[in-house]
């Protein structure tokens, strides 16, 4: 099967149980990491389980990379074990009677017997084992692994199958923040190093900012919005832009180290930012998160300011938030940026859509 052709997911599901109703009509890019984000009870895990075939929607149509996995109109429902997918459960779910190595080989053995698509080659197996840092754990039983190690083994177990799609159901939710930080870098690297599209369920904004390329917001069994991360985060019609932690996420690249000032300069499409020094080679891609509360707006280039990052921007949207706040959406180069300012400031500065201004960015954080 050619992965370049029809690289998208079409998912339509209708499912009722009790009060809850899932009603989904989605078309997702089948590359990078798509994050399903929503509160508990919004149906994101149910949607993932429907895609995996662990749950059968009464009405449903599911097409992955051109092959139909479910079509209730013609009675097609591929059972889970015949779907080319990897699934990472919230609590690892390793087989307790098998060693780590046997857990990894469980799927591989069966894949070799009936390959719907070739298993990853021997080299990839070792590559994945190294990538997830579990080489020294291979002969252990799952009960002798920490929570973070278990989850890394579970991710490797799904990846070695070289699936068409990797489904991850809140893989970090049961871990403490230290273990989360242990796994998050692996997840960002996965996407860069292995060409396997990921559907990732979470209710953590931090994970969204760090991992998502594409964001699907879910609410009460329905898709509230779906789109590219930076685009969706800064949409003024969505509640995300109103939250105290509202932020914009930019993809950037390291271009210069100013060692005497302990600064690193990164470039994005349409400009550059100075950040506190980081250790990374020139050309390293990274993600910069800018909280809306850290962005202020001025009408002219300030001549004297301690803030390093002052960029020209154009206002593309304004909406009223709670407690006398205005939420302004701007474009800096091609990047969308959110700013939370007071309504009074918006009035005094006479901010309007289309107006050219400057933004001062007080602080930024680097996500990977």
């Amino acid at each position, binding site marked *: 099967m050619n992965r370049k052709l029809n690289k998208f997911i079409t998912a339509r599901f209708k499912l009722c149980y009790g009060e809850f109703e899932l009603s989904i009509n989605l078309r997702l890019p089948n590359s990078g990491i798509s994050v399903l984000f929503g509160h508990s009870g919004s149906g994101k895990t149910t949607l993932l389980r429907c895609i995996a075939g662990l749950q059968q929607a009464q009405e449903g149509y599911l097409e992955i990379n051109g092959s139909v996995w479910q079509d209730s109109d013609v009675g097609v429902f591929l059972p889970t074990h*015949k779907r080319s997918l990897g699934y990472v459960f919230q609590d690892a779910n390793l087989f307790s009677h098998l060693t780590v190595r046997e857990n990894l080989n469980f799927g591989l053995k069966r894949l070799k017997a009936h390959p719907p698509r070739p298993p990853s080659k021997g080299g990839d197996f070792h590559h994945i084992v190294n990538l997830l840092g579990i080489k020294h754990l291979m002969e252990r039983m799952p009960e002798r692994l920490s929570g973070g190690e278990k989850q890394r083994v579970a991710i490797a177990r799904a990846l070695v199958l070289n699936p068409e799609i990797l489904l991850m159901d809140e893989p970090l939710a049961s871990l403490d923040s230290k273990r989360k930080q242990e796994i998050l870098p692996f997840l960002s690297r996965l996407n860069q190093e292995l060409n396997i599209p990921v559907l990732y369920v979470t209710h953590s904004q931090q994970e969204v900012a760090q991992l998502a390329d594409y964001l699907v917001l879910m609410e009460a069994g329905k898709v509230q919005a779906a789109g590219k991360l930076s685009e969706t985060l800064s949409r003024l019609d969505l509640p995300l832009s109103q939250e105290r932690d509202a932020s914009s996420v930019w993809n950037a690249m390291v271009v210069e180290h100013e060692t005497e000032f302990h600064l690193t300069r990164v470039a994005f499409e349409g400009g550059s930012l100075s950040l506190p020094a980081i250790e990374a080679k020139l050309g390293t891609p990274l993600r910069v998160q800018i909280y809306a509360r850290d962005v202020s707006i001025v009408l002219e280039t300030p001549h004297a300011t301690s803030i390093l990052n002052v960029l020209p921007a154009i206002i593309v949207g304004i909406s009223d938030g709670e407690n006398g706040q205005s939420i302004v959406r701007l474009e800096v180069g091609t990047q969308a940026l959110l700013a939370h300012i007071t309504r009074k400031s918006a009035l005094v500065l006479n901010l309007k859509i289309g107006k050219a201004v400057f933004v001062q960015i007080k602080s930024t954080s680097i996500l990977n």
Partner: protein
Amino acid sequence: MLTSADFATLLLTFKVASLATIFMLLFGTPLAWWLERTQSKWRGIINAVVALPLVLPPTVLGFYLLVLLGKNGIVGEFTTWLGIGTLPFTFAGLVVASVLYSSPFVIQPLQNAFSAIGNQPLEAAATLRASPLDTFFSVVLPQAKSGFLTATILGFAHTVGEFGVVLMVGGNIPDKTRVVSVQIYNHVEALEYTQAHWLAGGLLAFSFIVLLILYTVLKTSPNASLK
């Protein structure tokens, strides 16, 4: 000491218990699995039927078996038509009766073991390309290992200890249906207390050791077999 007749009853008891245990595991495993997984409305009824021998007096079960398996019973007519003859007072009849009488001691530990495994490993196996049958053999069986051991030991030990059903269905025929428990009864009837002591003491020791293994080595909880 034990006479050759006593040894014959011991050997027969062992044969009955072994065969009955094998049949109980063969029929009990799929039944226990079905009972644990099904959403069918029949589940409650079948569960109750499976548990019946736990509460029925063995003579009641034995009586109905005798009637069913006998010449005029439905099963009896069927076996006669097959050309096997009737089952009561034969070795085969004894095994059939034992299977029915002891099956809750096999099925319930298996059900508990299956329920302890839960749904999660099964879902993991499905996402790793294992078909349901494959999953049963490669995940469920190994994870239910101690449940199978408990079921085997309890089923075997309980069959060794039965008396009422054996007497009703099997009778007291040397080398054919005379098992240890019946032999002890014979000895006591004949006032051969020394002989009775040897056999009874042997059974007591056997039962104690079996339970000791269950509760220490396998760490089964004392009420695990009764949900």
